[in-house]
């Protein structure tokens, strides 16, 4: 190191985190100088939030060392790291719900300096709230804030710590464009010679306009790093964002043609699944707005969108894991809007959930059989053999505990489990999440085979290319609304697709 250079504010070396057999972050190095803004991007499940947790102290590292401001903070708990000047926000805001907005900030102030003069503290709070656009909300209870303002409160609360390093975890997700612009202005106003910021983000616009440097991570490893414009311009990064088969090699279309007989029968009959004006959300955050969608018998429908667009919420409302606030859902002509989840399942609607949700205390085979409980023994055996033929690795591991396998194998198990009920429609939610490309290829090959057999599928996916290869028709969902629909070929040609994904539409 050159003696003239000041030491970096943050110097993390060989950072690693594993959960059992699963590697979330692997020997990752980050150096950040005072006053710099570093962006971290990568697909869902790449390890971004784990990284924030490791730096903020919420997650303890399995390997590596973190130096901050000249001190080794590797073994310090979260509270001590916060006191030494690391402030973080949560991806899903976690304000102190029963306290006012102003009190939320006071927590940081009073824990740091219990005897600060109340006038000074109040002035500081006012300044931070004004800056974050919460000036009018000081006496409001945090519970009564809508999602966007809760996100602002996350930033404001972290600022009350007067952090030297600010960690922003996807503060832009789910915001509309004007809100993103406001957010960018806020982040830019925070930049000064003393404060460093790490921004984890899906909204590329924020990264582009705020970050000096950019780091791309996938599978817990750094794929690229450098000045923001250079990194964003590279094909490799585009491939990660638009899908791993986006490269030229994959252009040899693996697309599966719709079966002619199915296509002809589609026009006349009623859809198998129909969502009509559906709205839904979590608590006060409304995620879906008046969304309509239908899936015909034998059709493969793709539902695409970036992180936080509302894709998984659609999957959840269909399988009744989440109640809807308005609208109607019909399956095979029957209104299933008010049915409990298990009753929907018995009507032949299977849902391969995001995050796999494998039953850890059941073996691989039990995981499969529990989904086919209603069938007789012979039928169960037939279905089991069918799934084992599709994924031979499951047959090899049939007696192992479900969660002891690798991520890809677990995903295969989740797909197999959804098929075991002999469903009439399957929702596949983000089956490519956090998987290596070779494993994704295998899973999508299986889905293509199912399509040839005439399975009706709703494929919810972040990886555009893979989904477009498979689907008969696709919808792009953005901020809880369907913004673009059509056959894959048409969508591919549409410039708006790329814009929607990168958040650059005007």
């Amino acid at each position, binding site marked *: 190191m050159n003696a003239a250079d000041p030491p970096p504010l943050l110097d993390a070396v060989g950072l690693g985190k594993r959960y059992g057999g699963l590697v979330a972050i692997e020997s990752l190095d980050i150096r950040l100088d005072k006053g710099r803004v570093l962006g971290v991007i990568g697909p869902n499940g790449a390890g971004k939030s784990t990284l924030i947790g490791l730096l*903020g*102290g*919420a997650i303890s590292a399995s390997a590596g060392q973190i130096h901050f401001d000249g001190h080794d903070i590797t073994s310090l*708990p*979260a*509270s*001590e790291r*916060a*006191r030494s000047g690391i*402030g*973080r926000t*949560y991806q899903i805001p*976690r*304000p*102190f*719900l*029963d*306290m*006012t907005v*102003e*009190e939320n900030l*006071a*927590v*940081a102030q*009073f*824990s*740091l300096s*219990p005897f600060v003069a*109340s006038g000074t503290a*109040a002035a500081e*709070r*006012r300044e931070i709230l004004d800056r974050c656009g919460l000036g009018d909300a*000081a*006496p*409001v*209870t945090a519970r*009564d804030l809508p999602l966007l303002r809760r996100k602002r409160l996350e930033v404001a*609360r*972290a600022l*009350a*710590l007067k952090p030297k390093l600010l960690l922003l975890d996807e503060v832009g997700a789910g915001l509309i464009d004007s809100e993103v612009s406001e957010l960018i202005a806020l982040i830019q106003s925070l930049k000064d010679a003393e404060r460093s910021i790490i921004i984890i983000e899906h909204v590329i616009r924020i990264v582009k306009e705020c970050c000096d440097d950019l780091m791309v991570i996938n599978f817990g490893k750094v794929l690229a790093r450098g000045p923001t414009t250079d990194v964003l311009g590279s094909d490799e990064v585009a491939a990660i964002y638009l899908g791993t088969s986006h490269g030229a090699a994959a252009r040899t279309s693996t697309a599966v043609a719709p079966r002619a007989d199915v296509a002809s029968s589609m026009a006349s009959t009623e859809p198998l699944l129909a969502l009509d004006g559906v709205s839904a959300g979590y608590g006060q955050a409304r995620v879906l707005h008046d969304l309509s969608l239908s899936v015909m018998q034998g059709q493969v429908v793709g539902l695409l969108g970036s992180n936080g667009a509302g894709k998984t919420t659609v999957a959840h409302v269909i399988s009744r894991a989440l109640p809807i606030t308005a609208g109607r859902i019909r399956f095979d002509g029957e209104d299933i809007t008010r049915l409990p989840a298990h009753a929907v399942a018995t009507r032949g609607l299977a849902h391969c959930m995001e995050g796999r949700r494998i039953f850890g205390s059941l073996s691989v085979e039990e995981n499969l059989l529990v989904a086919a409980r209603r069938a007789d023994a012979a039928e169960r055996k037939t279905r089991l053999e069918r799934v084992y033929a599709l994924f031979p690795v499951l047959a090899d591991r049939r007696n192992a505990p479900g969660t002891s396998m690798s991520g890809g194998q677990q995903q295969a198990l989740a797909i197999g489990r959804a098929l075991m009920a002999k469903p009439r429609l399957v929702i596949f939610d983000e089956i490519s999440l956090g998987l290596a490309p070779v494993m994704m290829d295998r899973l999508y090959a299986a889905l293509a085979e199912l399509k040839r057999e005439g399975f009706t599928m709703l494929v919810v996916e972040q990886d555009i290319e893979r989904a477009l290869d498979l689907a008969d028709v696709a919808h792009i969902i953005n901020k809880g609304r369907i913004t673009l629909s059509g056959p894959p070929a048409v969508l591919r040609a549409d410039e708006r697709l790329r814009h929607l994904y990168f958040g650059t539409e005007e």
Partner: protein
Amino acid sequence: MSVLTTSVPERSLLLHHPFVRVALSGISFAALLAAPSFLPAYFVEIGFKLLLYIVLAEAWNLLAGYCGLVSLGSSSFFGLGAYVTVGLLNHTGSGIGLALAASALVAMTLALAMSRGLFRLRGLYFTVGTLALAEALRLLVVNVPWFGGATGLFVSADLPDVTELFRDAALLLVVASLVMTLATGSRFSVLLRAVRDDEDAASQVGVRAFRVKLAAFMVASALIAIAGGLQAIKLGAIEPYGSFGLQWSVDPLAIVIIGGLGMRFGAIVGAIFFVAIGELLADYPELHVAITGIILIILIRCAPRGLCGLLETALRRTGPTKVASS
């Protein structure tokens, strides 16, 4: 009850003015101290019981309502206070004040010693841990002959009469009220509520959650121990099943849930209700407890914020003041 006085709520009546509140509190406590001089003996007895219950409930509310620590171990500290007080009175000839102070100190030490293990248990498991602690202490006292075994001990020193005990209890209540005022209306209260709402998020803004919880736990334990000491002096005798009885864990919990968990006046309202029902059913103590159980189940289901919560909702609905939500 905002700590940050910058924003005075619109519905601030004269009652909410700090000086008025201090004056009102002063007058009520003066009245309380004077009360035994002109109250009939029966009411002094009831009053003593009521004061003791309010103190226990305030302490429990501090833990559960303001710090998120739902304890079923109040009886450990209550019994400990009783035994330490009686032990000191009998063996050292110390004054009552000194004995009570010592029992508070011992209780804080026990709380400190147990905190490492208990605070590792989050949520429900903390509750079970405190219950186990109370039961273990009771069995220990039953079995170690030094503590008088199952039959217990008598206080050999001269005992003050109930009037004086009433005043002591009133003083203890003053202390408890001051503690609660601090816990609900100071900078510390902001930290306390942050830990209750979201311990992890609180750590991320620099709150040392362990210390905050420990402070609340030690203070509550000290209050409970002094109450236990007073009760022992009142009875003139202690025995493990009485002093470490599960009722000393159950009653404060029931009082606070009835009155309103995390509500400033929850303990007082709940204690008055609880003692009144207890007096009405004085001849049927089992029926009293069973009815308390039924009230608990109903309130948990229908009014999680207890009587104070119901009252507040009713006032809000009828009152002309507009509520600052949204």
